[in-house]
């Protein structure tokens, strides 16, 4: 074994990527033959019919366009032409706002459910019924009551990130080891001090796992929500580019959404490592 496992994995990853790019390139290089037609008719037809070019952009087209978009990500030329950076910033801000609201609601309620068997049973039917509802099903209700599409988007993010955090917090709090609670009891530690010095650190790994699931779901949902409400955001960008028939931009958006989602997840993974304790 001359190379470490991670190096060998990186080599295989690169090979797979090149293979994928090569087959993509070959598949979209140009297929059919150009048909003979009058120039006037040809002007109405796309490049597929006139030059035998594939409608699907190849990796080189996408790369060039990506470079162009990334070189100037923050331009703003009216509602339908904004830089991809601006669109992303709108989406991240919405996810951030909805997500933070959910954190502020889910963690205290999760503590309540985890610490009180009464509240756990009393709230269980509500959670069980509301949890499986697709967050987008709330959208009309949100639009009608809030009367603001942007805030409605935030609300949808809030509602979808609420459940995993709530359930994980309640579970983490309820399954804190009895012996640790007994230690707090024998030391006559009050409820609040116990919540912050024993239960919170003990349940933190489970809570952060819930937060990690939530941020993943929130980032999935924001694209769909912005497609619905329109205006700004990366979801709107995707839909707008589909209407422009710019497959290149759609592919770029997919790539960018994936990278941002990964970064959000990695950020919380780092938090998770901080709060995890070895036993």
């Amino acid at each position, binding site marked *: 074994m001359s190379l470490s496992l991670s190096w060998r994995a990186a080599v295989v990853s690169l090979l797979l990527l090149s293979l994928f790019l090569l087959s993509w390139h070959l598949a979209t290089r140009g297929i059919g033959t150009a048909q003979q037609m009058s120039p006037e008719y040809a002007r109405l037809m796309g490049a597929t019919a006139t030059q035998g070019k594939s409608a699907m952009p190849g990796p080189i087209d996408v790369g060039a366009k990506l470079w162009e978009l990334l070189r100037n990500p923050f331009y703003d030329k009216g509602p339908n032409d904004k830089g991809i950076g601006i669109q992303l910033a709108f989406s991240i801000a919405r996810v951030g706002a909805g997500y933070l609201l959910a954190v502020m609601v889910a963690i205290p309620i999760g503590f309540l459910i985890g610490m009180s068997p009464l509240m756990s049973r009393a709230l269980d039917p509500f959670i069980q019924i509301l949890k499986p509802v697709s967050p987008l099903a709330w959208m009309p209700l949100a639009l009608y009551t809030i009367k603001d599409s942007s805030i409605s988007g935030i609300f949808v993010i809030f509602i979808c990130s609420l459940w995993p955090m709530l359930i994980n917090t309640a579970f983490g709090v309820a399954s804190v080891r009895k*012996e640790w609670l007994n230690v707090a009891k*024998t030391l006559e530690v009050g409820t609040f001090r116990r919540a912050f010095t*024993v239960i919170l650190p*003990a349940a933190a790994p489970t809570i952060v796992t819930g937060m990690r699931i939530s941020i993943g779901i929130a980032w999935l949902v924001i694209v769909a929500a912005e497609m619905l409400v329109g205006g700004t955001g990366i979801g709107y960008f995707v839909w707008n580019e589909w209407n422009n028939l710019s497959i290149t931009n759609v592919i770029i958006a997919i790539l960018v959404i994936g990278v941002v989602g990964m970064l959000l997840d990695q950020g919380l993974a780092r938090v998770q490592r901080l709060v995890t304790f*070895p036993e």
Partner: protein
Amino acid sequence: MTDKFLSIEGIAKRYPAKAGGSVAVFEDLWLTMERGAFTCIIGHSGCGKTTVLNIVAGLDEPSEGTVIMDGQEIAGPSLDRAVIFQSHALLPWRTVLGNVAYAVTSKWRSWSKDQVRKQAQIYIDLVGLTGAEHKRPSELSGGMKQRVGIARALAIQPKMMLMDEPFSALDALTRGTLQDEVRRICQETGQTTFMITHDVDEAIYLADRIVLMTNGPGAVVAEIVENPLPRERKRIDLHKHALYYPLRNHIIDFLVTRSRTFTQVTPHHDPRAVPVVRPSPSPPASVPGAVQHHSQRESDGVLDGAERPDGGAPQNRDRASLAGSRLSGAP
């Protein structure tokens, strides 16, 4: 000797049974402990000894009866009674110092960080963990973890220390060292201690009085064995003492057979007058009365009858001879 530092008065613990009614782990249990004494309770698992300890700790409530410590009824856990758990129960996200300091700040809320640190350090040094203050529990061996548990319990200077099989999860060598440490600390500090164990040798080495419990359900305190070995005993020559084997055999005999048959053999056992047994220095003879015997009858105000080796009631004499013949090996 009449100092009833801790008095367990007629406690019972019942659980609802599946077929209706209730199952009693133990009923009408009476026990007293003196200040500065080391009491061990020994019995098979399931006899409810952990429940007794949890009730004394305030972590569990008796279905009936009450426990009085230092003139006050026990109502819930208290900083007066420190518990050392079998599973050490250290907070894994805190360091050794952090774990001990957590207990110290719980006891003395207004103390400055420096004061807390000093107090914690004293007890970390006492249990021999100097230098490991900033390690986390996961970096410590089982024995070291339990040392932290002991330091945490002692650091709050409790009136009483409660230990629930504290060394049962440790290997024999570590267990021996820790027993030495606990014995040294308890003698130095005069700490009143109540310990659960199922290790006969541990009980003989550490305890002043060994409480024998019969098997559950419906367990009773069968007798209290006074440890006749000198207070200044050492592990090395413990087994050479003339009384070591009579004492050990007596306890093992109890655990092997009498813990099972006691309630049938002794139907008139009075839980408030548990016989106190003290194996005598004479070598085992077939003469009944090889053990001195006296009852602990609180209701009479006679707590210790060392001056009255024959005991008061004839009932007690029967029991004395029974125990004596058991000790001598004759049925």
